[in-house]
């Protein structure tokens, strides 16, 4: 049973397109996250939701819009894709918002913008 799953695993698209990445967790966690890992492996948080409410919104272009239809799902929609958006995007979940909570990561979505 996959704990945190993401679809698609790979996404290749043209500049200017709009795309979505989906994330689902079956761990019963309240908190979910999106991270971006760049080509140098640097991992940075983008957003966090707790019980469908946005609680962390880092300095991310507003072309990126997360949506949480329920606490088991956190999707990421990206408008007007740019070359610099190419990266691996990881979804994660944790039981709660406290920093002591272990985060469980999905396998990642490799986005390539041509």
């Amino acid at each position, binding site marked *: 049973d996959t704990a945190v799953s993401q679809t698609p695993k790979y996404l290749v698209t043209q500049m200017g397109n709009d795309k979505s990445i989906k994330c689902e967790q079956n761990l019963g966690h309240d908190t979910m996250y999106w991270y971006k890992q760049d080509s140098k492996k640097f*991992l940075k*948080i983008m957003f966090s939701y*707790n019980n469908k409410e946005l*609680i962390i919104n880092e300095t991310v272009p507003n072309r990126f819009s997360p949506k949480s239809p329920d606490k088991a799902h956190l999707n990421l929609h990206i408008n007007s894709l740019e070359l610099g958006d190419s990266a691996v995007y990881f979804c994660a979940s944790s039981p709660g918002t*406290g*920093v002591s909570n272990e*985060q469980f990561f999905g396998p990642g979505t490799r986005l390539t913008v041509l």
Partner: protein
Amino acid sequence: AQSVTQPDIHITVSEGASLELRCNYSYGATPYLFWYVQSPGQGLQLLLKYFSGDTLVQGIKGFEAEFKRSQSSFNLRKPSVHWSDAAEYFCAVGAAGYSSASKIIFGSGTRLSIRP
């Protein structure tokens, strides 16, 4: 501001040899510290964490780490590496945020290669 430094970008050790991966952090209060491992093409998996108490913490897969406040370090160690340990290793510090929002700040990672 909180930060994590992993000074070694890439380390190669022989199978069976001991390993130490370095991590230094910058944080004003008592830090929450983590080590994660990322195997090729996979997500991150938690190896171990330190919040308080005994400064030597044991993790999964035979790894341990030692918190040294005076050196602001949290180095990861393993007495004898296996070929399956080849991966990217990330040190991270947990930063308590405003209201209920807390986040983890990751270092830039150390890639570990194993020589047969």
